[in-house]
């Protein structure tokens, strides 16, 4: 949905993605208008599958110009693709595809907690978060809580991003809403449905943009606009703690 919002706002020149839509309804109307009609501006689309975009980031994360894969052979995504080309297996096996490295200028990731150096603990859904943080030239970590470094060091296997890769740490509780953060926030599904409805027309989108972005100076204002009741309903207060892990030497 965030893709769609940025595209519809006219801030995007090029999209490199496997899927652009709305988890609530499928189609992203802002993306469709840009792609089909060039409104509010033309976008260049680099289509991927989940694995090929993941491998493109992983290649950059590994410091490699490309990674090989079998995924996509026989399909149209990889045909004439600017970042994917057929290669031989140097060991004589079946042909492969090379997925060229994708090195974002900036990765912005949301985690549960980090110390002031950017060493970040993340749990729950991972997706491509770690690959993006490794691949990017600059990585910004947004966290629910900046914690004392002893918290991070108590569980170094939970540190998915070492701080020396991180350019900035932002403490912004609820910064991922309306998406969920395991143990902190539930997904607010209604805004996904509402955005799906309202973004069907450019006017609807502009109204949404004014209400939820332009008229809200910061995240506290956003939460206030959501309403205390909604925030309270979404905030996780239950506890289902991970089993103990003893690191004593």
């Amino acid at each position, binding site marked *: 949905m965030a893709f769609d919002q940025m595209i519809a706002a006219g801030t995007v020149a090029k999209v490199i993605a*496997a899927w652009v839509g709305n988890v609530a309804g499928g189609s992203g109307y802002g993306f469709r208008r840009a792609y089909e009609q060039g409104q509010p501006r033309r976008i260049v689309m680099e289509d991927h*599958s989940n694995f090929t975009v993941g491998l493109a980031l992983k290649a950059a994360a590994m410091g490699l110009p490309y990674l090989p894969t*079998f995924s996509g052979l026989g*399909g*149209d995504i990889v045909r004439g693709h600017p970042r994917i080309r057929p290669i031989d297996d140097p060991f004589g096996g079946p042909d492969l595809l090379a997925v060229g490295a994708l090195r974002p200028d900036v990765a912005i990731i949301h985690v549960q907690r980090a110390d002031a150096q950017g060493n970040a603990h993340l749990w729950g*859904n991972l*997706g491509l978060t770690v690959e993006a943080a490794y691949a990017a030239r600059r990585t910004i970590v947004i966290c629910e809580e900046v914690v004392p470094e002893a918290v991070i060091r108590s569980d170094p296997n939970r540190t998915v991003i070492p701080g020396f890769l991180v350019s900035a740490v932002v403490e912004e509780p609820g910064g991922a809403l309306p998406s*969920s953060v395991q143990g902190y926030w539930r997904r607010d599904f209604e805004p996904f449905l509402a955005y799906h409805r309202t973004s069907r027309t450019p006017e609807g989108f502009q109204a949404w943009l004014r209400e939820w972005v332009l008229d809200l100076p910061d995240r506290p204002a956003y939460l206030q606009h959501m309403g205390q009741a909604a925030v309270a309903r979404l905030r996780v207060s239950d506890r289902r703690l991970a089993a103990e892990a003893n690191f004593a030497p």
Partner: protein
Amino acid sequence: MTSRYTRRELMVVAAAREIRDREVVFVGMRLPLLGFGLAKATHAPDAVGLFENGVIRDRPAETFIYTMGDPPNIVGAVACLGLVDVMSLLQQGRVDVGFIGGAEVDPLGNLNTTRTSSSGALTRLPGSGGAGDIASLAGRTVLIMEHEPRRFRERVDYITSPGHFPGRRRGGPATLITTLGVFDLSAGRVRVASLHPGVTPEQVREATGFPITIDDHPPATATPSADELAYIRHADPEGFWTGDSMKSG
């Protein structure tokens, strides 16, 4: 369709029957997710489900989920890895069966979820997501589609998820489950395996945009048992996915 169950509930049951016990299943959202849960609850208690975001579960989430990254889909998972990890297992050949959908299908089982001009104007669809990877790399794939003439095309406009093609390394479309019937695609053509109760061969021919062979007396798709329906309605209590207006791919 009888009044006792919706066509989508019938499709969930058909999807469940495609899963054998102890199989490793690449699960999608919507009907496949319900089908996986139903299979686990009935004939395939030891099946394991992989989600493209990295989650591995051997039972469905305790509560309804809108997306596979929703917190209830993490709780009780046996593992929560990254996207590249589960895609690597898929590429290794560790996944027996995967479920995918699309906006268009052709007789080779090619699926399009990228873009189409079937209506005259260009329509942009959300893209592959993980579907192209599952189509490329799973041991076999089960396709789930709404059965409409504009969706069943001699040749899809764009092959997002490759079907049968010469030189395929493994897998390919095995079964197609639609709103009208169940079709065997394993031989590289579309053969009726069963028609949903009340559906006639003529209906299927009219709804299929390419010639299709139908035996004289095709069997009827097995109808959901009371237990199966009970499971589905427990898992999707508001009919979000199994109600009357199914959402496409």
